[in-house]
């Protein structure tokens, strides 16, 4: 089992790791755009792979606020409704 990452290390690298992940995905035909793997991020930032995995995992939860989960149903239902006059 991997060890827990220190919160200092997490706070220091959270944004840097996040920017390199596939949280934002870009597709352009003919081009290769992809988020980096944990190993690639580790090499890029001078961290260990284990540290990157921990920072990424915590960040994936931390970066999305609870309110967006609680509000999601309402947002989805609102967008689901067919505009008036459409079949």
């Amino acid at each position, binding site marked *: 089992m991997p060890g827990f990452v220190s919160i200092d290390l997490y706070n220091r690298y959270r944004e840097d790791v996040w920017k390199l992940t596939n949280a*934002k995905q870009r597709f352009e035909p003919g081009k290769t755009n*992809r988020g980096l793997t944990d190993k690639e991020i580790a090499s890029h930032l001078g961290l260990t792979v284990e540290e990157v995995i921990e920072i990424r995992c915590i960040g994936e939860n931390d970066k999305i606020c*609870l309110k967006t989960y609680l509000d999601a149903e309402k947002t989805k239902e609102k967008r689901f409704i067919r505009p008036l006059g459409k079949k």
Partner: protein
Amino acid sequence: MGSMGTASEIKEKALAMGVRAVGIASVEAINRFAPPGHRPSDMLKGARSVVVLGGGEPTGGAWRTGTNRVLGSIGYNRSQLASAARQLSYFMEERHGYYTIPIPTGDWIGHYPYMSLKVCAEMAGLGTRSMAAGIVLNPQYGLLYFNGAITTMPLPEDGPLEKPVCPHDSCVRLWEKKQTTPCLSSCPDCLSGEIEEGKIHWMEYRQDCCYPRAQTTAMDAFRKLLLEAVNEPEPEQRKAILFGSHFTRAVRSMAYSSELSAQCFNCLKRCPIVMKRVRRLK
């Protein structure tokens, strides 16, 4: 190299198990896009081919449900394709004598998958990326989910489709008139992009925006609510969190492995590629 006859036999076997579409990709082709650590040959030593299975899509009626919640509840079922992939793996080992495994389709760690099923599906000719979050759309069925089998068996590959499935002609016309498409307008938070000369010029998808909508009551929601409850100093308020409707749904989702993913569908609900099949029904 396995013959075309062998490939046809494997495909027929998959289709007989209820799979909607099947294609074969070479590991070499997948490795041109998949990064080290997330390649078929990282999952199975000496892997040569991937048999990709598509299916499990919402029925036509599911798209016509009155609420997003109902579509989110019945629009996806992960059991059928996983079962087909396992059965096909046994068949290929027993009939043809090559090592075969079902594609590991869960999350490897956190939000990262073991390997990209999108890349596998594209390389097997089962569809192309769309403006809607890069979801791979099949020319016949529109939305399909994917699974498959990785094998050491060399098989003739189908290769990527020559013509992109997305954008549909009607979306091109809409873009020229209003600079939007049904998918982009349905979810402007998650999606952005441009069409140029009738083709996708670029598309961006924000997974972090999509997550709370596609996985509203799944594992991340459970952990966030649990942390909220643990940090809540007032016992009565803590009770309101843990006995409340959202946490109740999250617990149920995990207990029954239902409503865990694909809970949104809004970006594809008005997609003409998906809807062309639905519109033929009475």
